[in-house]
């Protein structure tokens, strides 16, 4: 049985660490990770709770496959109520933290209440302690990592931590584990900071077992073979990482640029995955050193990169952490577009530097880049001036300005603190809410909904605010996985989104990476689950669980006041046609797709979850 069936509940107000049994009835209904923790959240945290109050609770949770030999099975999720969106937040991370939690004997760690002073949590198998963090409060994730490793003198300690932005209320602070893997979106790091928790340091020696080892080896080996033989997971992702998308999306005219004013970026190829392989002049080395894997990952899309030693970003900065001059976690596509094309910056090393800052300090680069881009547009329109920016000439394409803003948000100082509230609040404050490319207050990811129609519907309906990882129809509309659909067409996109949303909810609840879904379907996941833990896990049942999870999240959001009323895109997407590329002249067909979506979901025409649907799903 791959569950430990144990939960560690940490009450920070009282200073207690209490083990309790995992609710196995809920496991039957919601599987694990995203689904299961959302169930805990809905039962324990009233939807109207202020996300940054002690009444909010944070769940760090593994899935049933986490810690096993199934490919990519090292994932964990952080579920809480988001301070950025007011909706349910669920951020998923790889690295080696999730498996270590399982190895220590815990399926889930719950942080509730608020510590009266800065603390970190130390967990060594059964022993859990709340320890003072005065010495690391105000430090970066990387400094915290070093301090904890030195303090505990254990090179194999696995650490998840927040940086300064998480402490100081930047609303899109991430939790970073293993130096550069992020539970990135929706401000889960901000919630951790609001509880005065700096870090969680884990060490587990118990290991994980499975229900039927023989079947498990057979089925996971077969599933790994599928990944290895699939051109995307076996070749494309290891070689070029997610950044391989930069040129594809740009060529097809869905590459957001200049705060979504444009959908083609002239400098795209200079900041693409291909560009990361080209040797640079200064030292003859490419940006990319190698690919790396998270725990158990046989895909290994992770980027290990260096910044050009001659690049201005790292010159004469004595206070920079030594890792800026060495190998570290490099650019992902979502960071590259947001910090790059969206701000008009085509300087690969500037983007790598900004990515390092996001890793070091725990920031979501999507929200950060998007917010800077919105500020740039307002600067160019004269809505804000150097008076507001603290002297920064915030024009599109200004790499130095992008870096300065990034550093300011990382320090949560001055103009940075304002940008740290996210694009929705920033734009609203300056009287131009329509310039914020957000849904439910969360910044868009990298696909223009005018050029990829299904994604517009996905952003509008995503339970955690605009997001590509909730229903990645790009796979079908652009890449032809599992079948090719026309990105400019709205017909059939409601059903496509729902299928992707439900399936993804399952992948996110198993303990594996969603990237496996480029090669695996639920038919491939079910037998692995079935061998790992008791229960009868069929693809059909998993599909239903996916739908149940989606509806549970939706119900929570409805009660939180961010249900159907928030299912909308910024006016730029629905009223300003794209100007270049194949989508020229097009706007998002959300108005057409949304009613179909509600109908196919079994919701009311107004977008409410109906009593029938609830009954059907046992909610």
């Amino acid at each position, binding site marked *: 049985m791959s569950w430990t069936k144990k939960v560690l509940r940490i009450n920070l107000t009282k200073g207690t660490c209490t083990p309790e049994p995992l609710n196995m009835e809920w496991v039957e209904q919601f599987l694990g990770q995203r689904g299961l923790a959302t169930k805990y959240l809905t039962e324990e945290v009233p939807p109207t709770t202020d996300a940054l109050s002690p009444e909010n609770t944070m769940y760090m949770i593994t899935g049933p496959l986490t810690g096993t030999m199934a490919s990519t099975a090292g994932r964990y999720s952080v579920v809480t109520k988001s301070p950025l969106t007011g909706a349910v937040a669920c951020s998923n991370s790889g690295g080696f933290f999730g498996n270590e939690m399982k190895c220590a004997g815990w399926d889930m760690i719950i942080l509730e209440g608020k510590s009266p002073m800065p603390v970190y949590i130390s967990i060594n198998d059964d022993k859990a302690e709340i320890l003072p963090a005065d010495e690391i409060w105000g430090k970066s994730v990387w400094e915290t990592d070093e301090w904890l490793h030195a303090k505990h003198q254990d090179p194999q300690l696995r650490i998840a931590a927040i940086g300064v932005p998480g402490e100081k209320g930047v609303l899109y602070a991430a939790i970073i584990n293993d130096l550069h893997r992020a539970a990135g979106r929706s401000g889960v790091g901000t919630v951790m900071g609001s509880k005065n928790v700096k870090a969680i340091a884990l060490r587990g020696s118990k290991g994980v077992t499975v229900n039927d080892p023989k079947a498990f080896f057979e089925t996971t080996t077969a599933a790994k073979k599928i990944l290895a033989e699939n*051109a995307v997971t076996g*070749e494309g992702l290891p070689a070029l*990482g997610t950044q391989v*998308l930069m*040129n594809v999306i740009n060529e*097809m005219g869905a590459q957001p640029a200049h705060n979504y004013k444009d959908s083609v970026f002239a400098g795209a190829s200079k900041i693409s995955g*291909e560009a990361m392989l080209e040797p640079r002049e200064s030292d003859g080395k490419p940006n990319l050193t190698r690919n790396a894997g998270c725990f158990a990952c046989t895909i290994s899309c992770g980027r290990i990169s260096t910044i050009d030693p001659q690049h201005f970003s790292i010159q004469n900065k004595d206070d920079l952490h030594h890792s800026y001059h060495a190998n570290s976690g490099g650019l992902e596509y979502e960071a590259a577009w947001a910090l790059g094309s969206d701000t008009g910056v085509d300087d690969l090393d500037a983007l790598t530097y900004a990515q390092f800052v996001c890793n070091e300090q725990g920031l979501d680069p999507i929200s950060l880049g998007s917010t800077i881009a919105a500020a740039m547009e307002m600067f160019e329109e004269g809505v804000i001036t150097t008076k507001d920016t603290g002297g920064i000439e915030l024009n599109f394409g200004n790499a130095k300005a992008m870096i300065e803003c990034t550093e300011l948000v990382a320090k949560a100082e001055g103009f940075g603190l304002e940008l740290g509230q996210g694009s929705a609040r920033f734009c609203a404050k300056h009287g131009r809410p329509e310039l914020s490319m957000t849904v439910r207050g969360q910044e868009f990811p990298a696909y223009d909904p005018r050029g990829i129609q299904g994604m517009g519907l996905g952003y509008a309906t995503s339970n955690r605010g605009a997001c590509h990882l909730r229903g990645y129809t790009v796979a079908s509309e652009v890449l032809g996985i599992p079948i090719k659909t026309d*990105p400019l067409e709205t017909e059939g996109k409601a059903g496509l989104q729902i299928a992707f949303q439900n399936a993804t909810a399952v992948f996110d609840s198993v303990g594996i990476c969603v990237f496996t879904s480029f090669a695996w379907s639920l038919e491939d996941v079910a037998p692995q689950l079935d061998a790992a833990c008791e229960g009868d896990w069929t693809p059909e049942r998993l599909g239903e669980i996916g739908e149940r999870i989606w509806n549970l999240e939706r119900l929570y959001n409805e009660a939180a006041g961010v249900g159907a009323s928030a299912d909308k895109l910024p006016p730029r997407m629905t009223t300003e046609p794209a100007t270049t590329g194949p989508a020229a002249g097009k706007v998002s067909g959300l108005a057409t797709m949304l009613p179909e979506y509600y109908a196919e979901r079994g919701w009311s025409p107004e977008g409410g979850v109906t009593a029938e649907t609830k009954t059907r799903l046992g909610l």
Partner: protein
Amino acid sequence: MSKMTVKLFASLMEYLPVNSTKSHGFDYKITDSTTVGYLIDDLKLPRNVIHIVLLNGVYLDAETRDETVLSEGDTLGFWPPVAGG
């Protein structure tokens, strides 16, 4: 003779003609009847690796790909199977 642009990405970059700048594409001379299929064979691109073909940003279906005739100023991009997110 007129010209169009060919772009090769990801693992297909190894089929770039010598001296061409990498991902920015290279000029290709066409006649009134040059098809994508002809171009693929002419450049010795491996058909089993080609997955996404965009003609001026628009996806070319595998079925109609070979017969599609190229025009002056077209941009044709080739990718192996890729994905990200």
